């Protein structure tokens, strides 16, 4: 059975059944092993199918009359066609790999589909073949003899390179999507190998010479192919069963998904090549061998969460959506929807049912006409992000096509148990949770969780016995969705319980809070639950599925009853270690916000109650609150705390700030890049000149402007949360001036708070009002000022909802006081959160901006605003400086140290860094005014040191009037980095000198000084 399925917001919809639309000439041609869309030819929708009788059937779907037609049936091979592959660049070129040990190249041009070439790998049946994605002449083939061969299509007599790496059949291969010569192969021996086919010696990869030039290589494990031995295995993944199909995850260069060909293992695993022992995620749901799958970029259409969205309006759990930008209007939604349906964003042929049900492989690809899609993307700009690739569509022999979402996949890492615990003399408990893993970060999952995709699981009749059963399942899924939705309106704690599908979910608290305040409460670790419950939890696709996202251990405050993706601060940087204070009476995590209750808290409680629409608060007596908080026990796990949430915490809203996947946590290299970029782009102190991104002068109200500017930077960097923090800081710093002028502010504030708290969509509002509205009219009217006051409230609500309970909101006339009181709490908490995440950079940036005016206004100094001890601040600075140095970001570190007033840090980083430069002509020392720089100096190549001449210093020597910064080699004045020899004083352009000293060791000027002692 061959069907074309639309992937639409409403699910997978069968568009047409090719078997019915065509007068079937031969049933046999529907026993299909592989299908592929021709992506290159955008004018027509061409579809190639490889059949088990050796035929290749070409379908043209784009006929005028809408009827698919068989363009051509090629009797290609005497035996089964195992794989077909269109050429990625050239139109109409098709490779077919067959069981008959040959590969054939078909050309659509000229005579329709003639066999242009036949390649004989001479290694038994060819199981897989794929064109190189960027080199149009090369393709790789996987053979049953266990060899993987690289072919040049121009050389038909033999492979260019031959790799022997698998014992037993190689069943699948795929080129890396971005790296040019990286190839992943999967075999029956249960391994996946990632090869580097590039020629190490020349760097550029084309291995030449056919069977000729092989040099023996010392045969270590994984070294060497049969021919040449130049390719090496970068990675070896041991899977649990034979690997049938393998696909790199787009956008995530280190992730690869595999399916198994063996009955009994019906799952799809996602692996990280750096962590080859446990899969990052596992998709379940098929009841038979999963034949084929494709990654699907997460459609960023609101309709994908449309069920969720509708729940939204009703005050449901704040689903994803809050990526902080504008929410599309309903009109826009409709439009997109229509457009999408109209153009069939993706189409996918499909197996199953009657005939095709047997074959292991039904490939599928997504036909996406590029122009239209670009249009779509434009439309979606501003409130969505593409390129996250969090979905996957698979088909299996059970006749089903399932749309999987990573958010619902099970993560084997979660089932690992904690390993060590240690108690320090200061009463701090350190635990290492293997369990708190970074799968999310690796998967890019921090962020919006879509839900309801599970409803898209499609059932096809086709007479499959499992049909009815699966339909039942579908119904159940819908039920679950409906239930979740209905419960959303209920009090949060109820909702939380309803959303929980498995009370004994293994992600649930590691620490069971003890009911009594015992000096040393026991902390039983929950035993790993049978994986069945895990599976169950993941199979529920609707809100609870989305919620499972925030059930993930995250270092963020996800306390509070209500669900919604409470991963406000991005679950990405989950920390593996948590530190607990062992107090006199209770254990509580150090970073936990301590609620301190005023005497006035009666009103607060009332407000909170009103906000939450529940009366769960136990009495509302401050003392009691304090106590119950004291009882709060080891709350290492926010999740745990959430779940156990006694009344106290259930009113606290989870943060909903950020839902966009930030680039911050994707991988170590990204981390370094980000640090570097942010370090260079953050503006930490007022500058006279215009900043690159804005045209407004920055002279007045400098700190606020800095904040807004940095918010822009953070936003550009994809760090939405940080952008909010900056915005908030900006408002706080300008707060006293703004506040107190507008009395109505607080009521609005309250309204908004309520909105937030009840789960309406907070972010768009905040963002629109906040960043755009505010920026435009900040300095103008009182209305705007009042809006600012609201902003703080809104921001604080969003960023740190518990503050709603805290601030004395019953004094409506003094919103400024309110702000004053609030901001320290807000800021210190925000900073704590950042530290918790390891975000020293952002902390330091915040500190710097706060301190940037030099002389701080009363009440606005760093200690006033954050409330940290100077030692703590210093620690943070030192940590950041060390990080910068490790990343060799000397300039950023240098600039930071230069402006620091802390003598201690100066002592660490700026002592003995004076460089005494002298004029090369007359040996007169150059003073600070004429070229010397003080600062952090990296250890550089022996005999020379780098520094940047300050632009203000004079380029001329005060004595002999010679040009100081002259390059000794090209005699031009040096701009930028000037390298010189402290011995003779001569120097110049760094690249010139490097070139020179690569060959010489004496000074290029001929002064006879032997500047370079290293090397030879």
């Amino acid at each position, binding site marked *: 059975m061959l069907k074309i399925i639309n992937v639409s917001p409403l699910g997978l919809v069968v568009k047409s059944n090719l078997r019915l639309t065509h007068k079937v000439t031969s049933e046999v041609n529907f026993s299909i092993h592989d299908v592929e869309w021709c992506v290159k030819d955008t004018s027509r929708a061409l579809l190639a199918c490889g059949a088990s009788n050796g035929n290749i059937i070409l379908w043209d779907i784009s006929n005028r009359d809408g009827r698919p037609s068989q363009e051509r049936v090629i009797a290609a091979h005497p*035996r*089964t066609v195992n794989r077909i592959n269109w050429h990625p660049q050239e139109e109409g070129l098709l490779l077919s790999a067959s069981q008959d040990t040959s590969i054939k190249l078909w050309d659509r041009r000229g005579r329709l589909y003639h066999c242009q070439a036949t390649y004989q790998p001479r290694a038994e049946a060819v199981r897989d073949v794929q064109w190189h994605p960027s080199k149009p002449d090369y393709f790789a083939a996987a053979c049953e*003899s266990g060899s993987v061969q690289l072919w040049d299509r121009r050389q038909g007599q033999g492979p260019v390179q031959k790799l022997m790496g698998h014992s037993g059949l190689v069943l699948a291969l795929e080129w890396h999507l971005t790296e040019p010569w990286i190839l992943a192969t999967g075999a029956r021996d249960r391994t996946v190998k990632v090869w580097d086919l590039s020629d190490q010696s020349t760097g550029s990869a084309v291995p030449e010479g056919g069977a000729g030039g092989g040099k023996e290589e010392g045969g270590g494990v994984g070294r060497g192919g049969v021919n040449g031995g130049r390719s090496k295995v970068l990675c070896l993944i041991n899977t649990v069963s034979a690997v049938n199909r393998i696909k790199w995850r787009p956008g995530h260069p280190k992730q690869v998904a595999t399916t198994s060909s063996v009955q009994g293992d019906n799952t799809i695993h996602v692996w990280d090549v750096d962590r080859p022992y446990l899969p990052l995620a596992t998709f379940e749901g098929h009841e038979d061998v999963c034949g084929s799958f494709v990654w699907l970029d997460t459609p960023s259409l609101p309709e994908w969460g449309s069920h969720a969205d509708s729940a939204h309006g009703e005050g449901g759990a704040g689903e994803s959506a809050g990526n902080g930008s504008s929410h599309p209007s309903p009109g826009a939604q409709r439009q997109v929807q229509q457009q999408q349906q109209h153009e069939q964003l993706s189409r996918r042929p499909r197996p199953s049912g009657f005939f095709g049900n*047997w074959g292991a492989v039904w490939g599928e690809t997504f036909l996406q006409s590029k122009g239209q899609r670009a249009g779509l993307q434009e439309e979606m700009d501003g409130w969505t992000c593409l390129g996250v690739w969090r979905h996957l569509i698979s088909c299996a022999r059970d006749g089903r096509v399932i749309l999987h979402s990573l958010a619902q996949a099970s993560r084997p890492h979660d089932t690992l148990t904690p390993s060590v615990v240690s108690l320090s003399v200061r009463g701090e408990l350190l635990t290492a949770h293997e369990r708190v893993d970074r799968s999310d970060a690796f998967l890019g999952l921090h962020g919006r969780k879509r839900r309801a995709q599970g409803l898209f699981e499609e059932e096809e009749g086709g007479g499959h016995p499992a049909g009815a059963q699966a339909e039942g399942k579908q119904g159940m899924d819908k039920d679950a969705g409906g239930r979740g939705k209905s419960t959303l309106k209920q009090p949060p704690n109820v909702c939380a319980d309803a959303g929980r599908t498995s009370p004994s979910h293994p992600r649930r608290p590691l620490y069971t809070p003890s009911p009594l305040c015992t000096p040393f409460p026991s902390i039983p670790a929950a035993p790993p639950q049978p994986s069945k419950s895990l599976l169950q939890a993941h199979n529920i696709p609707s809100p609870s599925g989305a919620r499972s996202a925030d059930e993930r251990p995250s270092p963020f405050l996800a306390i509070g009853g209500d669900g919604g993706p409470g991963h406000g601060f991005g679950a990405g940087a989950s920390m593996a270690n948590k530190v607990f204070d062992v107090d006199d009476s209770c254990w509580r995590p150090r970073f936990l916000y301590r609620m301190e209750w005023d005497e006035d808290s009666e009103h607060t409680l009332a407000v909170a109650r009103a906000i939450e629409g529940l009366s769960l608060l136990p009495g509302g007596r401050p003392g009691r609150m304090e106590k119950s908080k004291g009882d709060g026990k080891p709350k290492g796990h926010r999740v745990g705390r959430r779940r156990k949430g006694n009344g106290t915490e259930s009113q606290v809203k989870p943060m909903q700030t950020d839902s966009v996947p930030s680039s911050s946590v994707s991988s170590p290299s990204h981390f370094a890049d980000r640090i570097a970029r942010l370090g260079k782009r953050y503006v930490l102190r007022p500058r006279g000149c215009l900043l690159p991104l804005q045209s407004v002068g920055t002279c007045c109200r400098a700190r606020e402007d800095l904040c807004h500017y940095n918010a822009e930077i953070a936003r550009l960097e994809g760090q939405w949360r940080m952008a909010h923090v900056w915005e908030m800081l900006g408002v706080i710093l300008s707060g006293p001036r703004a506040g107190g002028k507008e009395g109505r502010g607080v009521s609005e504030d309250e309204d908004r708070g309520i909105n937030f708290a009840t789960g309406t969509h907070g972010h768009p509002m905040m963002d629109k009002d906040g960043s755009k509205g505010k920026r435009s009219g900040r300095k103008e009217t009182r209305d705007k000022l009042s809006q600012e006051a609201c902003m703080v409230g809104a921001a604080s609500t969003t960023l740190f909802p518990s503050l709603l309970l805290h601030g004395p909101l019953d004094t409506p006339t003094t919103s400024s006081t309110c702000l004053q009181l609030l901001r320290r709490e807000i800021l210190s908490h925000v900073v704590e959160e950042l530290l918790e995440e390891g975000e020293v950079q952002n902390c330091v940036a915040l500190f710097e901006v706060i301190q940037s005016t030099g002389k701080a206004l009363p009440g606005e100094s760093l200690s006033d605003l954050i409330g940290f001890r100077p030692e703590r601040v210093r620690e943070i600075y030192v940590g950041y400086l060390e990080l910068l140095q490790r990343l060799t970001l000397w300039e950023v570190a240098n600039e930071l140290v230069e402006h620091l007033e802390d003598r201690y840090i100066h002592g660490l980083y700026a002592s003995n860094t004076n460089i005494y430069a002298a004029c090369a002509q007359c040996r007169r020392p150059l003073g600070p005014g004429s070229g010397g720089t003080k600062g952090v100096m990296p250890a550089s190549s022996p005999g020379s040191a780098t520094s940047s001449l300050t632009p203000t210093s004079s380029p001329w020597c005060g004595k002999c009037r010679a040009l100081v910064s002259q390059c000794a080699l090209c005699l031009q004045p040096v701009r930028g980095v000037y390298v010189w020899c402290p011995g003779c004083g001569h120097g110049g352009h760094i690249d010139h000198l490097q070139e020179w000293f690569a060959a010489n060791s004496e000074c290029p000027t001929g002064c006879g000084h032997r500047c370079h002692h290293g090397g030879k």
Partner: protein
Amino acid sequence: MISSVPQLTDLTKPRILLMGPRRSGKTSILRVVFQKMPPHETLFLESTHAVDIRLANNNPFLQFQIWDFPGDFFFNRVSRNGGEGGGGGRELGGSMTQEGEGEGPKGRELLDEVGVFGAPAALVFVLDAQDEPYHEALTRLVDLVARGQSVNPSLHVVVFIHKVDGDLFLSDEHKVDCQRDVQHRIAQELRDASLEHVEVSCFLTSIYDHSIFEAFSKIVQRLTHQLPVMENLLNYLISACKMEKSFLFDVVSRLYLATDSNPVDMQTYEMCVDMIDVVVDVSCIYGVKYDAKGEAEGPVYDSDSSSTIHLSNGMVLYLREVDE
């Protein structure tokens, strides 16, 4: 012991030529595959001193001669070896007929290059993986390939990297390394002899698991012209019946003559082999027909029989004879 002069038709049947160094396990392979000898008993096999030719004639698709060469067989010593003449054949089980090596002048004629490689043939070179270094054996392989190619360019060359079991090959990685090493050397040697065009496929085999059966099956399939047809038929079978996998077995030797084009999973294959063993054993007890004289007659498992085994994991094995 029945000794018969080889018929002309028998001699034209495809040959499987088992060659290789002494004590590399050629005869053991034959015994295990074709005579159901328990693997551990092969330890006590004596070395073969003369070319031993047997005819495998289990069914219409499995028809070939198996030539078991002595380890020290060299073509330049043909006359001496041929003269010594091995003492007849041993009884082969089942329907396998047996023929002694031709003696006298006829035998000598057989054992030159043309005589050996003249018919459609597959050269199976058995290499003892535990007997490093391989250099000498591989030199000999190349020599054989050169001789064979000169006579019969369509000669299939297969190398069994044999005895990949025991302490030396505990992990798959070792096996793969060994295979890679051997293939690399073979490629080099062939290149030196300018025989790059010859396709040499290597199999890692051991008589203690089913790898030898799979490897031998592959060879048999290469010699079977009807393979594409049979494979297609099996493809249609599993497609129509929604089976996972189907094999066409030679029940006597437990080799599979064809399978559908899905990848063969070793466990599935082993399970099927085990099923055949069980079914045949049970049939031998209960399924034997007796004629009037009280003697067993007819095959124990014929086209009227079929058997189904349900496994606890939901798998169903089904065995049925396909009529000729």
